[in-house]
Protein backbone atom coordinates (compact mmCIF):
# COMPACT_ATOMS: atom_id res chain seq x y z
CA UNK A 1 0.00 0.00 0.00
CA UNK A 2 1.16 3.52 -0.69
CA UNK A 3 3.16 5.38 1.88
CA UNK A 4 1.10 8.27 3.14
CA UNK A 5 3.10 9.78 5.95
CA UNK A 6 6.75 9.50 6.62
CA UNK A 7 8.30 10.80 9.80
CA UNK A 8 12.05 11.28 9.83
CA UNK A 9 14.01 11.73 13.02
CA UNK A 10 11.35 13.70 14.82
CA UNK A 11 12.29 15.41 18.04
CA UNK A 12 9.80 17.40 20.07
CA UNK A 13 10.63 19.76 22.90
CA UNK A 14 8.30 21.51 25.30
CA UNK A 15 10.56 24.27 26.62
CA UNK A 16 13.45 22.28 28.03
CA UNK A 17 11.67 18.95 28.24
CA UNK A 18 12.15 16.61 25.33
CA UNK A 19 8.95 14.74 24.69
CA UNK A 20 9.94 12.83 21.57
CA UNK A 21 13.34 11.37 20.77
CA UNK A 22 14.39 10.61 17.21
CA UNK A 23 11.13 9.10 16.11
CA UNK A 24 11.10 7.73 12.59
CA UNK A 25 8.16 5.88 11.17
CA UNK A 26 6.36 5.14 7.92
CA UNK A 27 2.59 5.23 7.98
CA UNK A 28 0.80 3.56 5.13
CA UNK A 29 -2.42 4.62 3.54
CA UNK A 30 -5.78 2.89 3.81
CA UNK A 31 -5.06 1.13 7.01
CA UNK A 32 -5.24 1.72 10.71
CA UNK A 33 -1.96 2.32 12.48
CA UNK A 34 -2.23 2.16 16.24
CA UNK A 35 0.14 3.79 18.72
CA UNK A 36 0.21 2.28 22.19
CA UNK A 37 2.21 2.87 25.30
CA UNK A 38 1.84 3.87 28.93
CA UNK A 39 0.60 7.32 29.98
CA UNK A 40 2.92 10.15 29.20
CA UNK A 41 4.96 8.20 26.69
CA UNK A 42 4.52 10.80 23.99
CA UNK A 43 2.07 9.14 21.67
CA UNK A 44 -0.47 11.96 21.80
CA UNK A 45 2.28 14.53 21.39
CA UNK A 46 3.45 12.61 18.37
CA UNK A 47 -0.02 12.61 16.90
CA UNK A 48 -0.28 16.35 17.29
CA UNK A 49 2.90 16.73 15.30
CA UNK A 50 1.21 15.20 12.31
CA UNK A 51 -1.23 18.08 11.88
CA UNK A 52 0.88 20.72 13.52
CA UNK A 53 -1.47 21.16 16.43
CA UNK A 54 1.63 21.44 18.57
CA UNK A 55 2.12 24.85 16.99
CA UNK A 56 -0.54 26.05 19.41
CA UNK A 57 1.35 24.86 22.44
CA UNK A 58 3.57 27.50 23.89
CA UNK A 59 7.18 26.50 24.02
CA UNK A 60 6.76 23.58 21.65
CA UNK A 61 9.67 23.08 19.28
CA UNK A 62 9.83 20.49 16.53
CA UNK A 63 12.93 19.16 14.81
CA UNK A 64 12.92 16.68 12.01
CA UNK A 65 10.66 16.13 9.07
CA UNK A 66 7.11 14.99 8.62
CA UNK A 67 6.34 14.18 5.01
CA UNK A 68 2.75 14.05 3.83
CA UNK A 69 2.73 12.56 0.35
CA UNK A 70 6.37 13.44 0.14
CA UNK A 71 6.08 17.08 1.24
CA UNK A 72 7.53 18.21 4.54
CA UNK A 73 4.71 19.85 6.50
CA UNK A 74 7.17 21.72 8.67
CA UNK A 75 8.69 23.50 5.74
CA UNK A 76 8.28 27.25 5.87
CA UNK A 77 5.78 27.63 3.04
CA UNK A 78 3.29 25.07 4.28
CA UNK A 79 -0.30 26.30 4.45
CA UNK A 80 -1.32 25.09 7.87
CA UNK A 81 -4.99 25.62 7.16
CA UNK A 82 -4.88 23.29 4.18
CA UNK A 83 -2.79 20.83 6.14
CA UNK A 84 -5.44 20.59 8.80
CA UNK A 85 -8.10 20.06 6.21
CA UNK A 86 -6.14 17.15 4.80
CA UNK A 87 -5.18 15.77 8.17
CA UNK A 88 -8.18 15.81 10.49
CA UNK A 89 -8.31 15.09 14.17
CA UNK A 90 -10.79 13.52 16.56
CA UNK A 91 -10.24 14.14 20.23
CA UNK A 92 -10.42 12.13 23.39
CA UNK A 93 -13.52 13.72 24.82
CA UNK A 94 -16.25 14.44 22.31
CA UNK A 95 -16.21 18.20 21.76
CA UNK A 96 -19.13 19.21 19.58
CA UNK A 97 -19.83 22.92 19.40
CA UNK A 98 -22.84 23.92 21.48
CA UNK A 99 -24.94 24.46 18.39
CA UNK A 100 -27.18 22.23 16.32
CA UNK A 101 -26.10 18.93 14.82
CA UNK A 102 -26.36 20.46 11.37
CA UNK A 103 -24.28 23.49 12.23
CA UNK A 104 -21.61 21.31 13.75
CA UNK A 105 -21.09 19.34 10.61
CA UNK A 106 -21.46 22.39 8.39
CA UNK A 107 -18.88 24.34 10.39
CA UNK A 108 -15.90 23.14 8.41
CA UNK A 109 -17.37 23.64 4.93
CA UNK A 110 -18.70 27.06 5.91
CA UNK A 111 -15.29 27.94 7.23
CA UNK A 112 -13.76 27.21 3.89
CA UNK A 113 -16.28 29.19 1.91
CA UNK A 114 -19.20 26.95 1.08
CA UNK A 115 -22.41 28.93 1.38
CA UNK A 116 -24.82 27.27 -0.95
CA UNK A 117 -27.54 25.72 1.14
CA UNK A 118 -28.15 22.73 -1.09
CA UNK A 119 -24.48 21.92 -1.17
CA UNK A 120 -24.21 22.16 2.60
CA UNK A 121 -27.23 19.90 3.02
CA UNK A 122 -25.56 17.37 0.81
CA UNK A 123 -22.26 17.54 2.63
CA UNK A 124 -23.94 17.23 6.01
CA UNK A 125 -25.88 14.16 4.97
CA UNK A 126 -22.91 12.53 3.32
CA UNK A 127 -20.70 13.11 6.35
CA UNK A 128 -23.29 11.88 8.81
CA UNK A 129 -23.80 8.76 6.73
CA UNK A 130 -20.09 8.09 6.59
CA UNK A 131 -19.98 8.42 10.35
CA UNK A 132 -22.85 5.94 10.74
CA UNK A 133 -24.94 8.58 12.44
CA UNK A 134 -27.38 9.70 9.75
CA UNK A 135 -30.22 7.34 10.59
CA UNK A 136 -30.14 8.37 14.23
CA UNK A 137 -30.16 12.12 13.73
CA UNK A 138 -31.85 12.75 10.43
CA UNK A 139 -34.94 14.08 12.16
CA UNK A 140 -33.01 16.07 14.72
CA UNK A 141 -30.57 18.06 12.66
CA UNK A 142 -31.67 21.32 14.26
CA UNK A 143 -31.44 20.06 17.79
CA UNK A 144 -28.49 20.86 19.96
CA UNK A 145 -25.59 18.52 19.52
CA UNK A 146 -25.30 18.37 23.29
CA UNK A 147 -28.55 16.43 23.48
CA UNK A 148 -26.86 13.42 21.87
CA UNK A 149 -25.34 10.60 23.85
CA UNK A 150 -21.59 10.39 24.31
CA UNK A 151 -21.13 7.85 21.58
CA UNK A 152 -23.30 9.83 19.21
CA UNK A 153 -21.43 13.01 19.99
CA UNK A 154 -18.17 11.35 19.14
CA UNK A 155 -19.56 10.11 15.86
CA UNK A 156 -20.77 13.62 15.25
CA UNK A 157 -17.25 14.88 15.79
CA UNK A 158 -16.07 12.32 13.28
CA UNK A 159 -18.72 13.49 10.82
CA UNK A 160 -17.57 17.04 11.40
CA UNK A 161 -14.06 16.10 10.42
CA UNK A 162 -15.20 14.06 7.43
CA UNK A 163 -17.11 17.08 6.15
CA UNK A 164 -13.88 18.82 5.18
CA UNK A 165 -12.84 15.75 3.19
CA UNK A 166 -9.54 14.87 4.83
CA UNK A 167 -7.15 12.22 3.68
CA UNK A 168 -5.79 11.29 7.06
CA UNK A 169 -7.71 10.85 10.31
CA UNK A 170 -5.83 11.28 13.56
CA UNK A 171 -7.76 9.77 16.42
CA UNK A 172 -6.53 10.59 19.89
CA UNK A 173 -8.01 8.00 22.25
CA UNK A 174 -11.45 8.51 20.69
CA UNK A 175 -13.16 5.93 22.87
CA UNK A 176 -11.69 6.84 26.24
CA UNK A 177 -14.81 8.58 27.40
CA UNK A 178 -17.27 6.08 25.98
CA UNK A 179 -18.93 2.93 27.28
CA UNK A 180 -18.05 -0.44 25.71
CA UNK A 181 -21.00 -0.55 23.34
CA UNK A 182 -20.28 2.90 21.98
CA UNK A 183 -16.62 1.92 21.77
CA UNK A 184 -17.36 -1.07 19.62
CA UNK A 185 -19.47 1.02 17.31
CA UNK A 186 -16.69 3.48 16.80
CA UNK A 187 -14.25 0.63 16.17
CA UNK A 188 -16.67 -0.73 13.62
CA UNK A 189 -16.77 2.69 12.04
CA UNK A 190 -12.98 2.91 11.95
CA UNK A 191 -12.80 -0.37 10.08
CA UNK A 192 -15.25 1.00 7.52
CA UNK A 193 -13.44 4.30 7.18
CA UNK A 194 -10.14 2.56 6.74
CA UNK A 195 -11.05 1.87 3.16
CA UNK A 196 -10.93 5.51 2.18
CA UNK A 197 -8.74 7.15 4.77
CA UNK A 198 -5.42 6.72 6.47
CA UNK A 199 -6.12 6.34 10.14
CA UNK A 200 -3.64 6.86 12.94
CA UNK A 201 -5.07 5.81 16.27
CA UNK A 202 -3.60 6.60 19.65
CA UNK A 203 -5.05 4.41 22.35
CA UNK A 204 -4.16 3.56 25.90
CA UNK A 205 -6.21 0.41 25.49
CA UNK A 206 -3.92 -2.05 23.76
CA UNK A 207 -6.74 -4.48 23.23
CA UNK A 208 -8.41 -1.91 21.05
CA UNK A 209 -5.19 -1.66 19.08
CA UNK A 210 -5.09 -5.42 18.72
CA UNK A 211 -8.70 -5.46 17.55
CA UNK A 212 -8.67 -2.85 14.85
CA UNK A 213 -5.18 -2.02 13.64
CA UNK A 214 -2.97 -3.61 11.03
CA UNK A 215 0.20 -1.93 12.21
CA UNK A 216 1.12 -1.02 15.75
CA UNK A 217 3.80 1.15 17.27
CA UNK A 218 4.88 1.00 20.91
CA UNK A 219 6.02 4.22 22.53
CA UNK A 220 7.89 4.51 25.78
CA UNK A 221 9.26 7.70 27.30
CA UNK A 222 9.18 9.52 24.00
CA UNK A 223 10.85 6.80 21.98
CA UNK A 224 9.30 4.52 19.41
CA UNK A 225 10.50 1.21 20.79
CA UNK A 226 8.97 -1.12 18.27
CA UNK A 227 6.86 -0.78 15.15
CA UNK A 228 5.46 -3.55 13.05
CA UNK A 229 2.49 -5.68 12.04
CA UNK A 230 -0.04 -5.87 14.84
CA UNK A 231 0.13 -9.67 15.04
CA UNK A 232 3.82 -9.46 15.65
CA UNK A 233 3.60 -6.84 18.36
CA UNK A 234 1.05 -8.82 20.29
CA UNK A 235 2.00 -12.41 19.54
CA UNK A 236 5.76 -12.23 19.47
CA UNK A 237 7.32 -8.81 20.03
CA UNK A 238 11.01 -8.39 19.41
CA UNK A 239 11.78 -5.98 22.20
CA UNK A 240 11.60 -7.10 25.80
CA UNK A 241 9.98 -3.80 26.82
CA UNK A 242 7.22 -4.28 24.28
CA UNK A 243 6.74 -7.81 25.55
CA UNK A 244 6.47 -6.63 29.15
CA UNK A 245 3.96 -4.00 28.15
CA UNK A 246 1.62 -6.17 26.10
CA UNK A 247 1.64 -8.81 28.80
CA UNK A 248 0.72 -6.18 31.35
CA UNK A 249 3.89 -6.77 33.32
CA UNK A 250 4.71 -3.08 33.55
CA UNK A 251 5.29 -2.45 37.20
Amino acid sequence: MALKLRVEDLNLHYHSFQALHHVSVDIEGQRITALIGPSGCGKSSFLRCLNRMNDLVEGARVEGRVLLDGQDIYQGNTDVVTLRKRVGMVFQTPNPFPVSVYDNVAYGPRLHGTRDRARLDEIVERSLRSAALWEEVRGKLRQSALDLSGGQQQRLCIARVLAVEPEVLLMDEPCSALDPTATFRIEELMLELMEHYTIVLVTHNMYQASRVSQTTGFFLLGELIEYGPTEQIFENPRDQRTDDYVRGRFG
Partner: protein
Amino acid sequence: MREAIRQRMWFALFASCTAVVAAPVVVIAGLLLWRGLPALDWAFLSTPPAPGMREGGILPAIVGTLWLAAGTTAVALAFGLPAGIYLSEYAPRGALTRAVRLAIVNLAGVPSIVYGLFGLAVFVLLLKRVTGGMSIISGSLTLGFLILPVVITATEEALLAVPQTLRQASVALGATRWQTTVRVVLPNAAPGILTGFIIGLARAAGETAPIMFTAAYFYLRHLPTSLQDGVMALPYHLYVVATQIPNYPAAKAWGTALVLVALVFAMNLGAVLTRARLRRRRRW
Protein backbone atom coordinates in the same frame (compact mmCIF):
# COMPACT_ATOMS: atom_id res chain seq x y z
CA MET B 1 -25.45 14.11 66.19
CA ARG B 2 -23.21 16.84 67.43
CA GLU B 3 -21.94 17.37 63.95
CA ALA B 4 -25.46 17.81 62.70
CA ILE B 5 -26.11 20.48 65.30
CA ARG B 6 -22.87 22.20 64.52
CA GLN B 7 -23.74 22.24 60.89
CA ARG B 8 -27.13 23.71 61.62
CA MET B 9 -25.49 26.44 63.66
CA TRP B 10 -23.08 27.43 60.95
CA PHE B 11 -25.75 27.50 58.33
CA ALA B 12 -27.91 29.65 60.53
CA LEU B 13 -25.01 32.02 61.00
CA PHE B 14 -24.37 32.19 57.27
CA ALA B 15 -28.05 32.70 56.57
CA SER B 16 -28.19 35.63 58.92
CA CYS B 17 -25.14 37.15 57.27
CA THR B 18 -26.90 36.85 53.97
CA ALA B 19 -29.94 38.54 55.43
CA VAL B 20 -27.76 41.36 56.68
CA VAL B 21 -26.39 41.79 53.20
CA ALA B 22 -29.77 41.72 51.56
CA ALA B 23 -31.36 44.00 54.10
CA PRO B 24 -29.96 47.31 52.87
CA VAL B 25 -31.27 46.62 49.40
CA VAL B 26 -34.71 46.00 50.74
CA VAL B 27 -34.52 49.02 53.00
CA ILE B 28 -33.31 51.30 50.24
CA ALA B 29 -35.90 50.07 47.81
CA GLY B 30 -38.60 50.43 50.42
CA LEU B 31 -37.51 53.88 51.42
CA LEU B 32 -37.29 55.08 47.84
CA LEU B 33 -40.68 53.74 46.97
CA TRP B 34 -42.29 55.12 50.07
CA ARG B 35 -40.80 58.55 49.80
CA GLY B 36 -40.30 58.88 46.10
CA LEU B 37 -43.35 57.32 44.53
CA PRO B 38 -45.65 60.20 45.44
CA ALA B 39 -43.55 62.53 43.32
CA LEU B 40 -43.66 60.31 40.29
CA ASP B 41 -46.11 61.30 37.62
CA TRP B 42 -45.97 61.82 33.93
CA ALA B 43 -45.23 65.53 34.28
CA PHE B 44 -42.30 64.82 36.51
CA LEU B 45 -40.80 62.49 34.01
CA SER B 46 -41.48 64.43 30.86
CA THR B 47 -40.88 68.06 31.59
CA PRO B 48 -37.70 69.93 32.22
CA PRO B 49 -37.21 71.74 35.50
CA ALA B 50 -38.37 75.28 35.70
CA PRO B 51 -35.75 77.91 36.28
CA GLY B 52 -35.05 77.77 39.99
CA MET B 53 -35.45 74.01 39.92
CA ARG B 54 -38.20 73.80 42.42
CA GLU B 55 -40.84 73.29 39.84
CA GLY B 56 -40.93 71.05 36.88
CA GLY B 57 -39.56 67.59 36.16
CA ILE B 58 -36.33 65.82 35.41
CA LEU B 59 -36.66 65.03 31.75
CA PRO B 60 -33.31 66.43 30.65
CA ALA B 61 -31.54 64.51 33.37
CA ILE B 62 -33.14 61.29 32.24
CA VAL B 63 -32.28 62.00 28.64
CA GLY B 64 -28.76 62.99 29.54
CA THR B 65 -28.18 59.87 31.55
CA LEU B 66 -29.42 57.77 28.67
CA TRP B 67 -27.13 59.56 26.25
CA LEU B 68 -24.17 59.07 28.51
CA ALA B 69 -25.10 55.44 28.90
CA ALA B 70 -25.12 55.01 25.16
CA GLY B 71 -21.82 56.80 24.79
CA THR B 72 -20.23 54.80 27.58
CA THR B 73 -21.40 51.64 25.92
CA ALA B 74 -19.71 52.65 22.73
CA VAL B 75 -16.44 53.55 24.38
CA ALA B 76 -16.29 50.61 26.75
CA LEU B 77 -17.09 48.04 24.08
CA ALA B 78 -14.92 49.64 21.45
CA PHE B 79 -11.85 49.54 23.66
CA GLY B 80 -12.66 46.97 26.29
CA LEU B 81 -13.84 44.15 24.07
CA PRO B 82 -10.84 44.05 21.77
CA ALA B 83 -8.48 44.49 24.72
CA GLY B 84 -10.10 41.61 26.56
CA ILE B 85 -10.00 39.43 23.47
CA TYR B 86 -6.39 40.27 22.83
CA LEU B 87 -5.31 39.60 26.40
CA SER B 88 -7.19 36.33 26.56
CA GLU B 89 -6.51 34.85 23.15
CA TYR B 90 -3.47 36.39 21.59
CA ALA B 91 -1.18 38.04 24.07
CA PRO B 92 2.05 36.18 24.60
CA ARG B 93 2.84 35.19 28.13
CA GLY B 94 5.47 37.61 29.26
CA ALA B 95 6.46 40.60 31.32
CA LEU B 96 4.76 43.06 29.02
CA THR B 97 1.41 41.29 29.22
CA ARG B 98 1.69 41.04 32.96
CA ALA B 99 2.46 44.72 33.15
CA VAL B 100 -0.60 45.54 31.08
CA ARG B 101 -2.78 43.41 33.32
CA LEU B 102 -1.34 45.11 36.35
CA ALA B 103 -2.14 48.46 34.84
CA ILE B 104 -5.71 47.43 34.25
CA VAL B 105 -6.10 46.20 37.79
CA ASN B 106 -4.78 49.50 39.06
CA LEU B 107 -7.13 51.35 36.79
CA ALA B 108 -9.95 49.66 38.62
CA GLY B 109 -8.79 51.13 41.88
CA VAL B 110 -8.61 54.69 40.76
CA PRO B 111 -11.17 56.84 42.62
CA SER B 112 -13.93 58.11 40.41
CA ILE B 113 -13.17 61.70 41.24
CA VAL B 114 -9.71 61.21 39.85
CA TYR B 115 -11.28 59.92 36.69
CA GLY B 116 -13.33 63.09 36.62
CA LEU B 117 -10.26 65.25 36.92
CA PHE B 118 -8.46 63.16 34.34
CA GLY B 119 -11.39 63.57 32.00
CA LEU B 120 -11.42 67.28 32.65
CA ALA B 121 -7.76 67.66 31.91
CA VAL B 122 -7.61 65.52 28.83
CA PHE B 123 -10.99 65.40 27.17
CA VAL B 124 -12.51 68.69 28.20
CA LEU B 125 -9.47 70.93 28.09
CA LEU B 126 -6.80 69.30 25.99
CA LEU B 127 -9.02 67.85 23.33
CA LYS B 128 -11.61 70.57 23.48
CA ARG B 129 -11.72 70.99 19.75
CA VAL B 130 -12.58 67.36 19.17
CA THR B 131 -14.87 66.80 22.10
CA GLY B 132 -16.44 70.19 22.42
CA GLY B 133 -15.32 70.66 25.98
CA MET B 134 -17.87 69.46 28.49
CA SER B 135 -19.96 67.17 26.39
CA ILE B 136 -21.48 63.78 25.90
CA ILE B 137 -18.27 62.74 24.20
CA SER B 138 -16.09 63.77 27.09
CA GLY B 139 -18.43 62.27 29.63
CA SER B 140 -18.70 59.04 27.71
CA LEU B 141 -14.98 58.75 27.32
CA THR B 142 -14.44 59.36 30.99
CA LEU B 143 -17.11 56.93 32.10
CA GLY B 144 -15.96 54.49 29.48
CA PHE B 145 -12.49 54.44 30.89
CA LEU B 146 -13.96 54.15 34.36
CA ILE B 147 -15.64 50.87 33.60
CA LEU B 148 -12.94 49.63 31.23
CA PRO B 149 -11.33 47.36 33.85
CA VAL B 150 -14.67 45.74 34.57
CA VAL B 151 -15.40 45.15 30.91
CA ILE B 152 -11.94 43.84 30.14
CA THR B 153 -11.98 41.53 33.12
CA ALA B 154 -15.46 40.28 32.33
CA THR B 155 -14.47 39.70 28.73
CA GLU B 156 -11.33 37.83 29.72
CA GLU B 157 -13.17 35.71 32.24
CA ALA B 158 -15.89 34.89 29.77
CA LEU B 159 -13.40 33.95 27.10
CA LEU B 160 -11.39 31.85 29.52
CA ALA B 161 -14.53 30.00 30.46
CA VAL B 162 -14.91 28.73 26.92
CA PRO B 163 -13.37 25.25 27.02
CA GLN B 164 -10.07 24.88 25.24
CA THR B 165 -11.43 21.77 23.57
CA LEU B 166 -13.77 23.88 21.45
CA ARG B 167 -10.90 25.99 20.21
CA GLN B 168 -8.91 22.87 19.44
CA ALA B 169 -11.78 21.38 17.52
CA SER B 170 -12.09 24.51 15.44
CA VAL B 171 -8.38 24.80 14.72
CA ALA B 172 -8.15 21.11 13.87
CA LEU B 173 -10.77 21.70 11.19
CA GLY B 174 -8.54 24.25 9.49
CA ALA B 175 -9.72 27.48 11.08
CA THR B 176 -7.29 30.29 11.76
CA ARG B 177 -7.16 31.62 15.28
CA TRP B 178 -9.11 34.66 14.22
CA GLN B 179 -11.87 32.56 12.71
CA THR B 180 -11.95 30.46 15.82
CA THR B 181 -12.22 33.54 18.00
CA VAL B 182 -15.04 35.01 15.96
CA ARG B 183 -17.02 31.88 15.14
CA VAL B 184 -16.59 29.77 18.23
CA VAL B 185 -15.16 31.61 21.19
CA LEU B 186 -16.98 34.94 21.10
CA PRO B 187 -20.47 33.55 20.56
CA ASN B 188 -19.96 31.27 23.51
CA ALA B 189 -18.49 34.01 25.66
CA ALA B 190 -21.19 36.51 24.77
CA PRO B 191 -23.41 35.91 27.78
CA GLY B 192 -20.55 36.49 30.17
CA ILE B 193 -19.25 39.50 28.34
CA LEU B 194 -22.66 41.04 28.13
CA THR B 195 -23.37 40.51 31.77
CA GLY B 196 -20.12 42.03 32.89
CA PHE B 197 -20.56 44.93 30.58
CA ILE B 198 -24.09 45.74 31.68
CA ILE B 199 -23.13 45.62 35.31
CA GLY B 200 -20.32 48.01 34.54
CA LEU B 201 -22.70 50.25 32.69
CA ALA B 202 -25.16 50.27 35.55
CA ARG B 203 -22.42 51.49 37.79
CA ALA B 204 -21.36 54.13 35.34
CA ALA B 205 -24.90 55.40 35.04
CA GLY B 206 -24.93 56.22 38.72
CA GLU B 207 -21.57 57.93 38.95
CA THR B 208 -21.47 61.58 39.82
CA ALA B 209 -17.84 62.62 40.17
CA PRO B 210 -16.63 61.69 36.68
CA ILE B 211 -19.41 63.55 34.93
CA MET B 212 -19.28 66.56 37.16
CA PHE B 213 -16.28 67.91 35.33
CA THR B 214 -16.79 66.41 31.95
CA ALA B 215 -20.40 66.46 30.89
CA ALA B 216 -23.01 67.35 33.44
CA TYR B 217 -24.40 70.82 33.77
CA PHE B 218 -26.31 72.26 36.61
CA TYR B 219 -28.98 73.53 34.31
CA LEU B 220 -29.51 73.38 30.62
CA ARG B 221 -32.37 74.92 28.81
CA HIS B 222 -32.34 72.59 25.85
CA LEU B 223 -31.96 68.91 25.30
CA PRO B 224 -28.67 67.95 23.64
CA THR B 225 -28.61 68.13 19.87
CA SER B 226 -25.14 66.84 19.18
CA LEU B 227 -22.52 64.75 20.87
CA GLN B 228 -20.52 67.84 21.59
CA ASP B 229 -23.27 69.24 23.72
CA GLY B 230 -23.26 69.05 27.47
CA VAL B 231 -26.13 67.38 29.27
CA MET B 232 -27.87 67.15 32.58
CA ALA B 233 -27.58 63.85 34.34
CA LEU B 234 -29.55 62.14 37.06
CA PRO B 235 -26.77 61.54 39.59
CA TYR B 236 -25.47 65.08 39.36
CA HIS B 237 -28.94 66.51 39.33
CA LEU B 238 -29.75 64.62 42.47
CA TYR B 239 -26.62 65.95 44.14
CA VAL B 240 -27.44 69.43 43.05
CA VAL B 241 -31.04 69.49 44.19
CA ALA B 242 -30.24 67.82 47.44
CA THR B 243 -27.42 70.16 48.40
CA GLN B 244 -27.53 73.33 46.39
CA ILE B 245 -31.21 74.15 46.25
CA PRO B 246 -32.74 75.35 49.49
CA ASN B 247 -36.32 74.32 50.08
CA TYR B 248 -36.31 71.79 47.30
CA PRO B 249 -39.35 69.55 47.68
CA ALA B 250 -38.11 66.47 49.41
CA ALA B 251 -40.48 64.23 47.53
CA LYS B 252 -38.98 65.31 44.22
CA ALA B 253 -35.50 64.48 45.47
CA TRP B 254 -36.67 61.08 46.51
CA GLY B 255 -38.40 60.78 43.21
CA THR B 256 -35.23 61.56 41.34
CA ALA B 257 -33.34 59.02 43.38
CA LEU B 258 -36.05 56.49 42.71
CA VAL B 259 -35.82 57.05 38.98
CA LEU B 260 -32.04 56.69 39.04
CA VAL B 261 -32.09 53.54 41.10
CA ALA B 262 -34.92 52.15 39.01
CA LEU B 263 -32.82 52.73 35.92
CA VAL B 264 -29.84 50.96 37.45
CA PHE B 265 -31.97 48.08 38.65
CA ALA B 266 -33.53 47.82 35.23
CA MET B 267 -30.12 47.57 33.62
CA ASN B 268 -29.02 44.87 36.04
CA LEU B 269 -32.22 43.00 35.47
CA GLY B 270 -31.62 43.24 31.77
CA ALA B 271 -28.18 41.77 32.26
CA VAL B 272 -29.52 38.83 34.19
CA LEU B 273 -32.30 38.11 31.73
CA THR B 274 -30.05 38.42 28.70
CA ARG B 275 -27.51 36.11 30.23
CA ALA B 276 -30.17 33.58 31.10
CA ARG B 277 -31.57 33.62 27.62
CA LEU B 278 -28.21 33.35 25.89
CA ARG B 279 -27.13 30.63 28.26
CA ARG B 280 -30.12 28.52 27.56
CA ARG B 281 -29.26 28.42 23.91
CA ARG B 282 -25.67 27.42 24.36
CA ARG B 283 -24.65 25.24 27.18
CA TRP B 284 -21.79 22.88 27.59
